[in-house]
């Protein structure tokens, strides 16, 4: 394959305002939810930031791995909230209907992170990654855990209408691509 990109003059692209708009829309959606559905670390709008891949909103300090993530659906009608590794909850903002996916338990004494929440274009499914750190120890900072702490990562999906959760593949950080 010989694909390559070459630099060329392009009009300016304002990342700052786009990121701020996405964070503000998410903060407004969180404010409409009952307080018990909003994880504690997401309750301060000033601390919300966009994750570096632009798919989800989280709290400041990227080094803090055990934190909550939230992703507003493309239409803004649904919201998916990962509460610090314990569960993923999808809420329909207009009706209040909820579906909840609990983290699976693979091994004893493991610690879990739920992250990488990504909506399908039709908003029917939510992809997410569960990372299980065996021996119950989460990594500190951005460093990968030492070999003694085996990590098992699963990509799972939650069907919004039925609440069904399926485990798709052993891996992490999944992105949707429509099938040809």
């Amino acid at each position, binding site marked *: 394959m010989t694909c390559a990109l070459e630099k060329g003059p*392009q009009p300016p692209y304002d990342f*700052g305002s786009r990121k701020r708009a996405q964070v503000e829309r998410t903060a407004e959606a969180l404010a409409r939810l009952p307080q018990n559905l909003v994880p504690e670390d997401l309750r301060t709008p000033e601390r919300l930031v966009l994750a570096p*891949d632009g798919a989800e909103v989280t709290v400041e300090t990227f080094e803090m791995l055990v934190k909550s993530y939230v992703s507003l659906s493309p239409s803004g009608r649904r919201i998916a909230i990962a509460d610090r590794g314990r569960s993923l909850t999808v809420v329909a903002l207009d009706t209040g209907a909820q579906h909840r996916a609990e983290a699976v338990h693979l091994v004893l004494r493991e610690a879990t992170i739920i992250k990488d929440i990504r909506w399908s274009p039709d908003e029917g499914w939510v992809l997410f990654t569960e990372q299980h750190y065996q021996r119950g120890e989460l990594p500190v900072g951005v460093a990968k855990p030492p070999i003694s702490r085996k990590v098992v990562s699963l990509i799972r999906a939650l069907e919004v209408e039925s609440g069904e959760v399926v485990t798709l593949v052993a891996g992490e950080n999944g992105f949707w691509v429509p099938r040809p």
Partner: protein
Amino acid sequence: MRAAFALVRVVALGAMAMLACCLPMDAWSQSQPASGPRLRLVYQTISDRGDGQWRLRDLPEGLEEWVLWEWTNDPWERKLSTSYCAISGDCRHALFVQEWLVGGYFPTWTLALADLAEPIHGGKAVTIENMFYLVDYPVWLDESRLVLGVADGPDRTERYRRPSSTS
């Protein structure tokens, strides 16, 4: 009786834990039921020592899978995983951002482009450019142009255009 039941439960859980630890990743994933969304999935696998791959997989069947981009870790050129991937709007290309440390210290970010439309077994993504500043928020503006955020104080952007004569 209760103690005996608890003992059986602990033994069963232990056996499940050992199975989860010993089962190879590929064998584990192929054992999954054919349910769930019909999609193609671009995802990462990362080993405990930091080696990894970006893969493209058909789901739910999981019969077809391609390796799009892979890296091997070593102490001198330590490569790290990043979550930065951008799928183009026409779903024909994926852009990956690979962070690595030259000499175990100097951070570098490599951009790689993969063909999703006609993936080839053994065909890998091509490196576009190495950068010495943090790149994130990759966004495709249309089918041929993308923008990269640069996390170095105020947002800056790099703009690229894919030549139309690619093969």
